[in-house]
């Protein structure tokens, strides 16, 4: 089994991945899929200025090489 760590973020993005995990579809492909939640530190500061918000948003685990794939 090859271990892969994936970020899980918004549920609307994640459903196929959760199904694949729960139904053993990753395992059938030889993938030991592990999930790491996106860091819920998306800034909730109210702002009119896009420059106030880090475009990385909650995808910090990817930026820190904790996961090798994410979706958006």
């Amino acid at each position, binding site marked *: 089994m090859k271990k892969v760590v994936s970020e899980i973020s918004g549920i609307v993005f994640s*459903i196929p991945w959760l199904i694949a995990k729960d139904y053993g579809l990753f395992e059938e492909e030889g993938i030991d899929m592990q999930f790491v939640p996106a860091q819920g530190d998306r800034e909730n500061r109210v702002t009119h200025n896009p420059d106030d918000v880090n475009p990385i948003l909650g995808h910090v685990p990817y930026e820190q090489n904790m996961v090798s794939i994410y979706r958006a």
Partner: protein
Amino acid sequence: MVRPDSPHNYPGTLGNRPVAVSFHAAAHYVSLRLLEGYLPNEKIQLVSFGSPRRRFEAMLNGEADACVVMEPWISLGEKIGCKSLAEGHYLGAENASDDMDAETFAAINRAVSRAIDLFNADKRKHLHYMINAPDFAPVAAQYGGISPEDFHLPRLRYTKDTYYPPEIVEDTYNWMVRWGLLSASACTADLVQNRQAAPAPAD
């Protein structure tokens, strides 16, 4: 989406009114694509509130006239009487690190594709993933909960991984540059890697 008692019934009245989004996320880009068809750019007033929950609550409590959210927040809003003024869809993308080999990426996509088949074969059966999502379920409970029957199933569009046509990449690139969301010095070839071969031309 707007409150049940909102005077807004179509996007054209949202000029200079705060619309709750999350900057640099889908809600940001889709809102611009939807509103620019109704309003001059200078009248589009997007305000970043962050998470879907925060945007949804900002709409309900009047901090914003409208919010831009995805499922399952749309279905929850509709259940409590909120009005959808416009809907847009966009392409999702898998973003893999440089060190992921092609074989692993293909294996992942095969598994996900089979999961998509399962979902599409019986969407309601799998909506519990949305209904019970940790960031959503507590809010839905405040409004009486939500069930699979509350969802409009055609809105849920999961498709298998596919070739990303250069024309679409270019159109999106130009749109982002026009809105100042991407530096014009960026090169699409540096940003998008098609790991699937282009489809064969039709006869």
